[in-house]
């Protein structure tokens, strides 16, 4: 029988606020344990949560970017369960009335469009972290992360293969980062994904029993885990078994999923409205205000790059991979008025060097203005493309302006026609044998003459001009 996978994804995105969702502690990552804690996030007796306004603003931004309906009144609920990383014994989350519902995300997979529904977006607080001792039967509780704001974005079970899952995640990630509401760093855990997977006979409408996959900390792992789990379920079904509804952890090293070791019990979270927090009211005017601050989103930007700069779709894709790259490219293109050349430089030289030096785009040592100037200098013939590569290397290392480097090294091209004609005459005079060969029809020798002229001018001759003069002189002979 042929099976069709059904995939739904739940993404937890940490919001890029300065402080936690319900207290003034810093959200900074990587500090010593329990240095960003206070009575509120430690869950001490008698203290109360007070909502960070930015969290609502960011959640609304994401809701707008994913075409969700925003609930003007949404409600906080407590999700009750015991775990050492959960200080209050409940997580403050949203349940019955989340901040936003019913949106969608448009994907493009191998040129084909695909729309994935978004069920809901809700706000909640993160839990702390457990560190397990290797040498003793002890775990350590670090509550720095407890209370860091999250939004959970729940998709409809609309994806039918791991590629679609991965494409959805990439798009979601891209938007979160573009909106500058999430750092999107999967290793630091600020973009986490759980997946629900089930199989059903192709053509069947009802869903099969699903498993929930956790512990996948990269896009690649999500795709691998989905692929593995689909194969596993298919094997189970084909060998006459039934899929058990359970949570399975992805093991990167083994490349397999396995059931959670801890005894999994039927959870009963006993959700109820949090009496400490009044409903969140988001008036229409506030939504309008937030809408005005929305940046151009990646998909729109991509289309505009193709339209406005006449770039190939591939280039537009690479250049809009992040807001920083896109902004950089646009600045270069504006400066030099040669969008395709700017695109080649940014995609090749800049991104290559960034990757090689393990830098962030924001740390690029060559300013967009300087690169734009460099491209302009090629265009007006001041330097050749080849010389420009050397100048660029120098710019990358020294951060100097291109005109400074050209001046220092005396690199400007010889574009003086009179001077070049003299050199050409000298070359032709010194190589009569080759001139004879050329006249005999051996046109390859032309390159030899160019080489000789470049050698004599130490590479500073404008190649276009050299070609032009050589052609004229040879035909005049």
């Amino acid at each position: 029988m042929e099976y069709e996978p059904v995939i739904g994804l739940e993404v937890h995105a940490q919001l890029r606020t300065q402080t936690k969702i319900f207290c003034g502690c810093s959200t900074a990552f990587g500090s010593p344990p329990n240095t960003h804690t206070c009575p509120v996030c430690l869950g001490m007796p008698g203290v109360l949560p007070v909502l960070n306004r930015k969290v609502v603003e960011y959640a609304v931004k994401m809701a707008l970017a994913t075409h969700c309906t925003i609930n003007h009144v949404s409600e906080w609920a407590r999700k009750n369960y015991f775990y050492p990383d959960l200080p209050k014994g409940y997580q403050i989350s949203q349940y019955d009335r989340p901040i936003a519902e019913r949106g969608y995300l448009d994907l493009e997979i191998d040129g084909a469009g695909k729309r994935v529904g978004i069920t809901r977006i809700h706000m909640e607080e993160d839990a702390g972290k457990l560190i397990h001792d290797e040498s003793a039967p002890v775990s350590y509780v670090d509550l720095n992360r407890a209370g860091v704001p999250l939004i959970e974005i729940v998709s409809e079970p609309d994806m039918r293969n791991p590629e679609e899952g991965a494409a959805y995640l990439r798009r979601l990630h891209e938007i979160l980062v573009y909106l500058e509401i999430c750092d999107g760093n999967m290793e630091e855990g600020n973009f986490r994904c759980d997946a629900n997977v089930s199989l059903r006979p192709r053509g069947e409408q009802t869903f099969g029993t699903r498993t929930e996959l956790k512990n996948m900390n990269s896009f690649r792992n999500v795709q691998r885990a989905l692929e593995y789990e689909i194969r596993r379920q298919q094997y189970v079904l084909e060998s006459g078994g039934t899929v058990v509804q359970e949570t399975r952890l992805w093991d990167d090293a083994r490349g397999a999923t396995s059931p959670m070791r801890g005894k999994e019990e039927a959870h009963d979270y006993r959700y109820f409205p949090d009496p400490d927090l009044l409903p969140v009211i988001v008036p229409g005017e506030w939504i309008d205000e937030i809408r005005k601050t929305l940046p151009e989103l990646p998909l729109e930007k991509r289309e505009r790059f193709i339209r406005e700069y006449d770039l190939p779709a591939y280039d537009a894709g690479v250049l809009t991979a992040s807001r920083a790259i896109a902004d950089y490219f646009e600045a270069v293109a504006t400066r030099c008025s040669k969008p395709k050349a700017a695109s080649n430089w940014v995609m090749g030289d800049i991104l290559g060097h960034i990757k090689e030096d393990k830098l962030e785009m924001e740390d690029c040592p060559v300013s967009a203005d300087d690169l734009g100037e460099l491209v302009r200098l090629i265009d007006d013939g001041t330097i050749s493309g080849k010389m420009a590569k050397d100048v660029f290397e120098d710019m990358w290392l020294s951060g100097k302006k291109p005109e400074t480097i050209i001046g220092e090294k005396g690199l400007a091209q010889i574009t003086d026609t009179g001077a070049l004609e003299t050199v050409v005459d000298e070359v032709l005079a010194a190589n009569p044998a080759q001139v004879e060969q050329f006249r005999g029809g051996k046109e390859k020798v032309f390159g030899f003459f160019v080489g000789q002229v470049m050698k004599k001018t130490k590479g500073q001759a404008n190649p276009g001009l050299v070609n032009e003069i050589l052609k004229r002189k040879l035909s005049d002979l």
Partner: protein
Amino acid sequence: MEPYYLTVHELEGLLRAGETTSLSITEAMFRRIDDVEERIHSYITLMKETALEAASASDQRRREGAARGPLDGIPVAVKDLICTMGAPTTCGSRFLERFVPPYDATTVEKLRDAGAVILGKTNMDEFAMGSSTETSYFGVTRNPWDLERVPGGSSGGSASAVAAGECIASLGSDTGGSIRQPAAFCGVVGLKPTYGRVSRYGLVAFASSLDQIGPLARDVEDCAILLTVIAGHDKRDSTSLSAPVPDYRDFVGRSIAGWTVGIPREYFIEGIDPAVAAAVNRAVAAMKDLGAECREISLPHTRYGIAAYYVIAPAEASSNLARYDGIRYGFRSPGERELLDLYRNTRAGGFGPEVKRRIMIGTYSLSSGYYEAYYKKASQVRTLMKQDFDEAFAACDVILAPATPTPPFRLGEKTDDPLQMYLSDVFAAPANLAGIPGLSLPCGFTVNGLPLGVQLLAGHFEEGKLIQAAAALEKALSAEQRRPAL
């Protein structure tokens, strides 16, 4: 003259006139405590050292002409459910026996800022769950009027301390009558403010949508003085409202001639003690003498109050008390090697039976399959109860009703029958469910010399009216200055 039975406003006058000092009053309070505390047990923790320092500092301010207002230098007590930085806050529980909060409750901060001298932390039912102060891990508190009887609860220590002269006034908390019922049992005035009037920050939560801190004192004016100090919006409590805080003392002494006083008929049918009914009748007569019109009204959902309350309060409590897991603070079952055992044994060992019982009821009523039938249903009935009050206050200025169905009962009388204990809150819980303010005022004694109380209720944020009516009634009843024989 010993100062321990004076009122805040009397002491304020003496301090202002330079006839006494905060230090001498405070020292007298501790002498009184030494005399009677062994018999009453109002306190869990005494804060003698910091109290004497605060008293000296107050005297210093006064000498410099920088006294801070009517509470400056006045010795008060605070229920041990309200956090005090640097001093243990036990909530009457073994669980928090050694817990020392690194923060003050907002109300404590406000008391300190007003110059009040905090004598100590008063005894209470464990986590405020009880109506008799018998569930405290630290032993029972006795009623100063009859040592074989309970002081009421859960703020029993705050009420007995005022009644026995172990403090001038105190703070309690009221979730389902926990200020008004012990005030009635101990013959003092107790005021539960409108939900949101006083910050709950630092009040250890029992049932967050019902809890409210309020004063217990010797007279209505003292309650007004304390309320003025502790009321107001707090940016650390999202459920505190920013309505302006008047000087509630201004409402004392104003006439209530022409007011309409509602007498809810549903408060006179359910096993009410004749002495209590007689007390209410005296109060009704006094109100009429004051020129108020007393009119029978109906609050039709009153009889469902306890049922709704005993779903909602335990549900919230079951979640509020989940934080007591023995990891970050408090009691921990020793030597546990498994996480599940750590949780189960810590919580079993740290909580007393009444707290466990309420956690069980609450957990059950929120659990899968029961939420709609219990929690949601009770919350809907709560809406109807609030509507009853809204309608009543459209026609009345205040409501006059019994505070408790009976005078103080005997120690141990109801400890084996939780439901009977719960029913003693029948007249108090509706105000918490509706979020309205209520005040319990002494109204004579039984033939056996036990105090009786009546209750006044007002609409949301109508504490001014409540105080105006209570002060007028207090004066009209010209309560005899009886003191417990200690």
